[in-house]
């Protein structure tokens, strides 16, 4: 079902390479962390001379893992890749490489994960009444604990597995692979109506199953504060 594209000559930066540059750390701006991100040292050096190259290197290194991670939440290649691209574009536009106090990896994974979670939230939460959610805006801006993220994407996976086989197949073809209903109908020899019905069931099943894992209105406020 999933198309595997051979990556050609694409290389991922090795994570544990240590370079001969040492003790130049003393000259780095004081707010960069100094111990656990030795493996990003090279990239940080590159930023000093060419930020564009630095961003490119970061992208090369992390995009695959980030897209995969985002896809666990949103179950769509296209959306996952959009989220990751957005995060990297914002990284460039805000000159984040100058102001992050953590490792780049920390910043990127956290951003992508937040965006993916918010997307999932806005998709699958129905607003029963706007005023009801206003009162809980102070709590639950985002998951209180990091392990809630894992719980959420594992829950998504469980729910998809629980879909009846035909329903699941159609759901994945539509959502994950981005195929249109007509394509799916043709491929499986069904009517578009049937495909629609299955998708409706699938989505409503997901919505019900994710209740309690996601809160909505608060996230709008949160996203804004993040960008302020």
């Amino acid at each position, binding site marked *: 079902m999933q198309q595997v594209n051979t990556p050609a000559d694409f290389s991922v930066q090795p994570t544990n390479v240590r370079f001969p540059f040492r003790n130049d750390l003393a000259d780095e701006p004081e707010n960069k962390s100094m111990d656990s991100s030795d493996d990003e040292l090279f990239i940080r050096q590159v930023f000093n001379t060419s930020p564009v190259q630095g961003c490119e290197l970061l992208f090369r290194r992390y995009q695959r893992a980030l897209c*995969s991670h985002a896809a666990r939440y949103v179950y769509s290649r296209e959306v996952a890749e959009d989220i990751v691209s957005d995060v990297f*574009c914002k990284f460039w536009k805000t000159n984040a490489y*100058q102001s992050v106090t*953590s490792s780049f990896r920390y910043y990127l994974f956290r951003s992508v994960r937040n965006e993916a979670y918010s997307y999932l939230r806005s998709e699958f939460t129905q607003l*029963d009444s706007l005023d009801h959610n206003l009162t809980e805006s102070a709590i639950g801006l985002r998951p209180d604990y990091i392990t809630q993220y894992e719980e959420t994407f594992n829950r998504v996976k469980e729910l998809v597995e629980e879909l009846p086989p035909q329903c699941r197949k159609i759901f994945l073809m539509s959502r994950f692979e981005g195929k249109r209903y007509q394509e799916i109908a043709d491929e499986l020899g069904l009517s578009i109506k049937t495909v629609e*019905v299955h998708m409706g069931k699938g989505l409503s099943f997901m919505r019900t199953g994710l209740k309690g894992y996601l809160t909505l209105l608060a996230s709008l406020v949160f996203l804004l504060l993040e960008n302020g």
Partner: protein
Amino acid sequence: MKADITKELIFNNFANKTTPLQRKQIDDWLQSQTNEELYYQWLEEWENANLEYLSQSERLLERYTHFLHNNPHPVQANQLKNRSGYFQQRQWWLTWLIAASVLFVLAMGTWLFRDYTYYKTYRTAYGEVKTFVLTDGSQVTLNANSSLRVPRWGFGDEKREVILDGEAGFTVTHLPNQQKFLVKTDKKFEVIVLGTEFSVFARHRGARVILEKGKVQVNYQEGNSAKQLVMKPGDLVSFNAKNKATLKTVSPSQNFSIWKEKRFVFDEISLSDVAQLLEETYGLSVTIDTPELAQRKLMGSFRAENVDELLRTISDLLDINVVRQEDQVRLSEK
């Protein structure tokens, strides 16, 4: 406690193999930023070893590189000077921006979700029939898989308007100020009433209005022209795919509104139409074995409490096999 947190445990957590207590321990461990850094290092490793899917890296990188080169910005070398003064000013401005943005977002949210905020939505699931009363005393019976939107504010102040998707029966109260009651649908027609009993059917496959008591005016659009017709009791107006209206009179025995009592009347209706009815009302996916079978007609009136009873009745009436598995139904000759 710290000694317990190993890479293996974190990997297990990603793979959904940890207990709640272990997750709590992990969360405690993650309070420190150093640990959180380590966590993301392991997350990267785990993801690369267990990719959910393989992204097309070359294409994505190309897109990003284009973006970088199309959006250059001048190197900000001396930005770090005057840090504190700059920061304070920024903070004040920030508070203002947040306040204005929150208001904006709320307004946007209200507008974007206006269907939810402006309207109260009554909705029925497949196979469900619900009756309720509106604030003006009008009674509505909503058939399965339908929704009715009623404005939360202003309903009955100057006008009474509702929006229907599906099928519903209305008993509209006659208001002393002669206020009209308006039923709008997704289809290009609306029903204006003074105070009567009527039924509106507006689904994917077609649309019709049946009047039982009183008088209604139907405004509809056929092509580019707006048209109108007036109905009296016993009239049935049906709309074809081009929204052309046909007016007929139906005899009292041919009662289309019997679904309210969980009775079904089939008056020479083909099996393929019945299949569509099953899909609309119960969300079933129906396959009929042969085209000949699909053309067979059903005639009769009977009660059915639920979909299985209905299927059994159909099977008896036509002497055919009806097999149901969850939402898949198959009709075949015996």
